[in-house]
């Protein structure tokens, strides 16, 4: 009896730890991950009574490290996938069963209201992805539920947020196999299409694709209405005028670019780039107007006195 209370505490701790723990702590002994986290898998062929080892479909291999840091880390596979997957060989009919969608859990749920899943769904419905490919274009085409993390909300690094966001686009637009899943014969040519963009690599690292390729909704943190490529923003000044540093870099770039194109000494003179000076600073504009009107007023008063004196 004297061990009762410590025993109780130990049991409580075990239960608590278990409930915060993950199903994926030990992939090697996890029913699904023992195969789906490996490049190869082995099984006993009952028909032939042999042990067999085969290659795992690379698209079905789960990265267990990333799985354990994603937002769904506390879910088990069968929370979303059919429980029948726990038997092997998996029944062929399982592939035809509808998959759980994000909105099955997140839609209309007050506890997820801040993420505005329903509004996102409306926007996705308007997007070129959904318009072109219908319901086949699910959330998971961009947001891998296995690894998804709320980087845009939690990270303080712009580069990390941009990389995370652009990886979603590039996972298809830079992968012919995945791209063909929804595009048919169309070939993705991200680099060639963006050939017009100066410092392409730098832009890809520091600017999210969605910056130019979505219709911005003010009340949505990340716009999901991906536009057709013809409607993408191509105006450098959209970004390079709001911030003076961006604008400065644009000014320098354009200036050097045009000079490189027009090698003549006079090229620099017909360069059409310019940068607004003091007029972009409201206080300086106000001061300059005051000085101007004061000078004009002084002159007008002086003229009036000169006329009066002359008449006398």
């Amino acid at each position, binding site marked *: 009896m004297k061990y009762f209370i410590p025993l109780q505490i130990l049991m409580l701790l075990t239960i608590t730890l278990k409930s915060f723990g993950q199903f994926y702590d030990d992939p090697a002994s996890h029913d699904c991950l023992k195969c789906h986290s490996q490049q190869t898998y082995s099984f006993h062929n009952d028909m032939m009574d042999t042990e067999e080892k085969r290659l795992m479909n690379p698209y079905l291999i789960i990265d267990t490290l990333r799985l354990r840091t994603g937002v769904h880390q506390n879910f088990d596979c069968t929370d979303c996938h059919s429980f029948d997957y726990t038997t092997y060989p998996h029944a062929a009919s399982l592939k035809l069963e509808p998959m759980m969608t994000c909105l099955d859990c997140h839609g209309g749920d007050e506890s997820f209201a801040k993420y505005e899943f329903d509004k996102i769904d409306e926007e996705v419905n308007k997007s070129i992805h959904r318009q072109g490919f219908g319901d086949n274009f699910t959330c998971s085409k961009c947001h891998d539920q296995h690894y998804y993390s709320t980087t845009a909300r939690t990270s303080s690094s712009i580069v990390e947020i941009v990389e995370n966001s652009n990886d979603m686009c590039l996972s298809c637009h830079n992968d012919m196999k995945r791209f063909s899943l929804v595009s048919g014969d169309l070939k993705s040519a991200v680099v060639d299409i963006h050939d017009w963009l100066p410092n392409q690599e730098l832009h890809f690292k520091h600017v999210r694709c969605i910056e130019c390729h979505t219709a911005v909704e003010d009340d949505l943190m990340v716009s999901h209405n991906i536009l057709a490529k013809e409607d993408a923003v191509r105006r450098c000044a959209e970004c390079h005028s709001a911030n003076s540093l961006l604008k400065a870099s644009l000014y320098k770039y354009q200036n050097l670019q045009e000079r490189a194109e027009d090698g003549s000494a006079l090229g620099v*003179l017909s360069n059409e780039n310019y940068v607004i*000076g003091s007029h972009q600073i409201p206080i300086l504009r106000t001061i300059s107007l005051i000085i101007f009107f004061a000078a004009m007023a002084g002159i007008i008063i002086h003229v009036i006195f000169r006329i009066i004196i002359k008449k006398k």
Partner: protein
Amino acid sequence: MSSENKIYFYPLWLRIWHGINALGIILLIITGISMNSGFEESVISFKLIITVHNYAGVIVSLNYLLFLIGNMVTSNKKFYIVKPKNFLKRPMKQAYYYAWGMFHGMKAPYPLSEKRKFNPLQKYTYLIVMYIIVPLVIISGIGLMFPELIFNKIYNISGVLITAVTHSAMGFFISIFLIIHLYIASIGKSPLDNFRSIVNGWHHV
């Protein structure tokens, strides 16, 4: 050189410099205001406005060299020498004359002569404009034309922004100077007398 109350104040080189400078500065001010205010829709195309500004800027800058060299090699420089005695009192006296004295029968405190081409207020203004403001506008203009010469950042503020603001602020001071310069020039024997002088070189005293 003088005859019948006339002094030959403005030698040919100076009049050529002044003429080119006047036209250039007027073009620069008009095009500069257009560029600063972003009047993209106008009779003249915006691209042409920028090109005119660039050409006029280069011409006025080269012309500035004529002013510098002209003053170096001729005796015109002596008119710019500032006397330390009554350094502030002298221009104040001239300002008082313009604001009050000339309406109350006061004689000009610093009448122009062979030895004195500018009154103290004029001298100070010309010195500030020609040796501080114009060089600043030229240097910042060169910076904007060749932005790779500009520091990327100065205390976290864009170098291009600082250069552009300096350029347009100095341009603004030159505009104000021009307005006052033109007005003061009208205070002569007759309102147009001084304008004739800068064309023919002879100043009536």
